């Protein structure tokens, strides 16, 4: 009875079924990480402007593919829902977007030296060399933990660690060993894609096309 009366759990179930059950979000996000992993290589090949244009075009194509897949395979199986302006969904969305945007702006401002990095007196050299990346990693991990807790999706906790540590490891490898191919990020993206494909195959099995009576 307490399960049935839990509005919060009902919200989570609705959101999971509507957005995360089919695995396409995982495939989309994993593909974006793989694109980011080769970004430095393509940047050297095409230059910054063309590389950005290529990246955005690939991203647009990816979004079209995911949209078409959801329309063709997912919607006929689970139908459609219009999520209400429910308080906790709105709150989660607002806080999540705010944190993400604030972190992104901070990261960009630091990269462009618009704001200077803190001096961290007394901190070890390895921390001072990668302070922004470490902080970014912690924020990413925290952000995904927050999303995972709000929406009740366990794998988001894993994705935070994969993304955060993948990004940090890629940065360190680039600076210390000159490896511009961000293979830790690629591994993180590939893991998400594999999970997404497994989820999608399970989705097709668990949600056959419904038999609708006249």
């Amino acid at each position: 009875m307490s399960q049935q009366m839990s509005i919060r759990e009902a919200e989570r179930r609705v959101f999971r079924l509507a957005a995360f059950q089919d695995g396409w979000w995982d495939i989309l996000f994993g593909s974006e990480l793989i694109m980011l992993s080769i970004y430095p290589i393509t940047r050297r090949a095409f230059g910054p402007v063309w590389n950005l244009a290529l990246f955005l075009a690939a991203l647009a194509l990816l979004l079209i593919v995911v949209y078409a897949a959801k329309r063709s395979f997912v919607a006929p199986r689970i139908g459609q829902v219009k999520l209400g302006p429910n308080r906790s969904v709105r709150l989660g969305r607002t806080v999540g977007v705010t944190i993400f945007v604030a972190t992104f702006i901070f990261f960009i401002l630091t990269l462009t030296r618009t704001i200077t990095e803190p001096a961290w007196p007394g901190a070890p050299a390895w921390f001072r060399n990668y302070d922004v990346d470490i902080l970014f990693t912690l924020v990413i991990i925290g952000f995904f933990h927050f999303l995972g807790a709000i929406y009740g999706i366990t794998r988001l906790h894993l994705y935070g660690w994969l993304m955060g540590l993948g990004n940090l490891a890629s940065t360190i490898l680039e600076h210390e060993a000159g490896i511009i191919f961000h293979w830790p990020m690629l591994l993180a993206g590939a893991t998400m894609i594999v999970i997404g494909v497994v989820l999608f195959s399970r989705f097709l099995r668990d949600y056959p096309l419904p038999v609708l009576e006249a």
Partner: protein
Amino acid sequence: MTSLEPDTNELHPLADLDRTIHSPARLMVMTYLYVVESADFVFLMQLTGLTWGNLSTHLTKLEEAGYVALEKGYKGKKPNTTVSLTEAGRAAFKVYKNGMQAVLNELPD
């Protein structure tokens, strides 16, 4: 001699519960509709695990009580029904929820 009459004061809130909502299937439907703006028939079917006929019967009862609104349309060539809670339905669900929680909170561990 101790009276064997049941103490109806403690049962009173239960006796007042809305019987339209107080059915496992309809309670499930109302709960899910409460947290969304609207959902189509197929989505409700997948979410609740009810069969088409079963869901249809329960939605008819809820519509007759004025708790849900059914909007029939088409998606391409396929008929599509969108379901949403009415204002009366939302109010009735809140009353039901508060009543049930009050009763459950009074129960001993």
